[in-house]
């Protein structure tokens, strides 16, 4: 097959851009597996750094997962009814509230964290527990669930479906769980995907809110970058990627399947 020189040029350009973006990532990953980064790969490959990171920092990994799951649950419990209420109200106040909800995303995380510290910092037990960080994460990630859920709710002719359920004898709470929630699955899942990802990687807020006893993975990363060997920091990044990439792929696949089912 004969291809034009234009095609070859375009392909070359694309590959160059890809390389520009991917090579640093790959180099960093390789650094985590290299015995001595300054001598290069010739010094040999090893899992020692990974094991060392795991021994030192595994609590941060578990805490991050715990936070992300708890955050997703909280955001669902608050966000789905909130989205429903906002769609149902659809007036000046609901739109103003929607804007207000996005504020913690627009504001620098440090500022929201400072506000939380000023308000709740004096409650020692709460301040030093991981729940303090959870509050910050919920505030920050809430709009990322509410927005897609609202979008799906507006598409679904929910008022008529609810009237149909009511005509069959379903009261308001039954209608919410048997009609509203199942018909927003795709939106809820897309939101949860976003929330889990953001919570796992959140640094700004978390760095201000954490205590030495409540370090998350990104905070631990910053620590290791500042104080440990380059190989250790790189191995740490590798662990983070190993954790988050399969999760992202799995969640993407589920949401793709769900949205296919709906568009049939």
């Amino acid at each position, binding site marked *: 097959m004969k291809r034009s020189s234009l095609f070859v040029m375009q392909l070359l350009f694309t590959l160059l851009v890809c390389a520009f973006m991917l090579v640093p990532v790959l180099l960093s990953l390789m650094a985590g597996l290299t015995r001595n980064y300054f001598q290069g790969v010739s010094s040999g490959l090893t899992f020692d750094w990974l094991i060392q990171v795991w021994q030192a920092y595994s609590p941060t990994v578990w805490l991050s997962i715990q936070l992300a799951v708890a955050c997703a649950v909280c955001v669902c419990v608050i966000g789905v009814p909130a989205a429903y209420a906002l769609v149902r109200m659809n007036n000046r106040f609901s739109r103003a509230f929607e804007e207000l909800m996005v504020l913690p995303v627009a504001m620098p995380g440090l500022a929201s964290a400072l506000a939380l510290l000023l308000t709740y910092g004096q409650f020692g037990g709460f301040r030093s527990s991981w729940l303090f960080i959870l509050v910050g994460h919920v505030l920050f990630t809430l709009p990322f669930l509410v927005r897609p859920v609202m979008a799906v709710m507006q598409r679904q002719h929910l008022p008529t479906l609810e009237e*149909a359920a*009511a*005509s*069959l*004898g*379903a009261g308001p709470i039954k209608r919410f769980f048997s*009609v509203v929630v199942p*018909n927003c*699955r795709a939106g809820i899942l897309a939101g949860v995907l976003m929330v889990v990802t953001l919570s796992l990687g959140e640094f700004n807020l978390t760095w201000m809110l954490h205590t030495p006893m409540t370090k998350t993975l990104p905070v631990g990363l910053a620590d290791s970058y500042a104080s440990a060997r380059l190989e250790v920091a790189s191995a740490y990044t590798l662990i983070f990627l190993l954790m988050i990439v399969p999760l992202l792929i799995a969640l993407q696949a589920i949401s793709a399947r769900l949205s296919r089912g709906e568009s*049939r």
Partner: protein
Amino acid sequence: MTGTTIRLQGCRKAFADGTVAVHDLNLTIEPGETLAILGPSGCGKTTTLRLIAGLESPNAGQIFFDDHDVTRLPIEKRDVGMVFQNYALFPNLDVAGNIVYGLKIRGLSPAERNKRCAELLELVGLQEHGKRSIHELSGGQRQRVALARALAPRPRVLLLDEPLAALDAQLRERLRSELDELLRGLGITSVFVTHDQGEAMALGDRILVMEKGRVAQLATPREIYQQPANAFVASFVGNLNAFPVVERTAQGLRVSGGELPWTGSNLPSTVYCRPEHLRVMAGESHLRGRLVGQFFQGAQSRLLVDVGGAQPLLVDSADNVIHTPGALIGLAVAPQVLFTLNS
């Protein structure tokens, strides 16, 4: 299923913007009766149905199912079955899931639910489709599932909002007769809203014609067609020819284009007749005019005859003779088919 009497007493519904959708409506729907609510869009027919359903509550007046005052009950406590205009089937459930939804809420056991579901699938002729997804169904099948879902919990009253409007013409005709058979077989009190006079005539035991939130006429289809209460009803149900009367003559009434036979003692200002009651006559005739249009409609032809009035007369002729355009046409009319209207 025995029929329930539905009674509306002085029901009035105004919306937040001040428009009154329904003015002081008094209406009694007999047990087992099928009532068609007919009218142009915005006449209050859907609001009336929603008042009966409990999806709207009246600003004044009361609604009774038999002797039970249901005015303050929400729809989920009224025990009504409802078929929505676009069916509103639950897309997250399959056909059987939709049908048993109401049974689950009433707490029936899985065995009872399956039995009732099978009965209904058979009733609407969808035995093989229980496991189908809603997305896989055609328009007609969706309509049947919506009907089966509404009937499954054995409601006291069946309400249908434009049940056939979303279907194409041929399917509409077939489902109309199926629906008619079904409603008669069940003997359930049912109310349906339509803007299609043919549908109202075919399905309704009585027709409630509404105009601007008020009752224009409540009568059987035959009465509505033959003795319309006013000009609005007459023009909305079927086509109409109007003859402004010029003067009284020895044999009848002089109108533009000729003379009509009239046996009444009164002198009306306008008399009316239906297009199918005007006959094309070769010889002696009551009216004469020029043919300005001819439309072949299969079983009959619609002729437009200009007799010098404001609008050409509509004539439905069964003989299908092709007339030359502009030909002089003689028309005859029997005195008993002419009628007058209160404006």
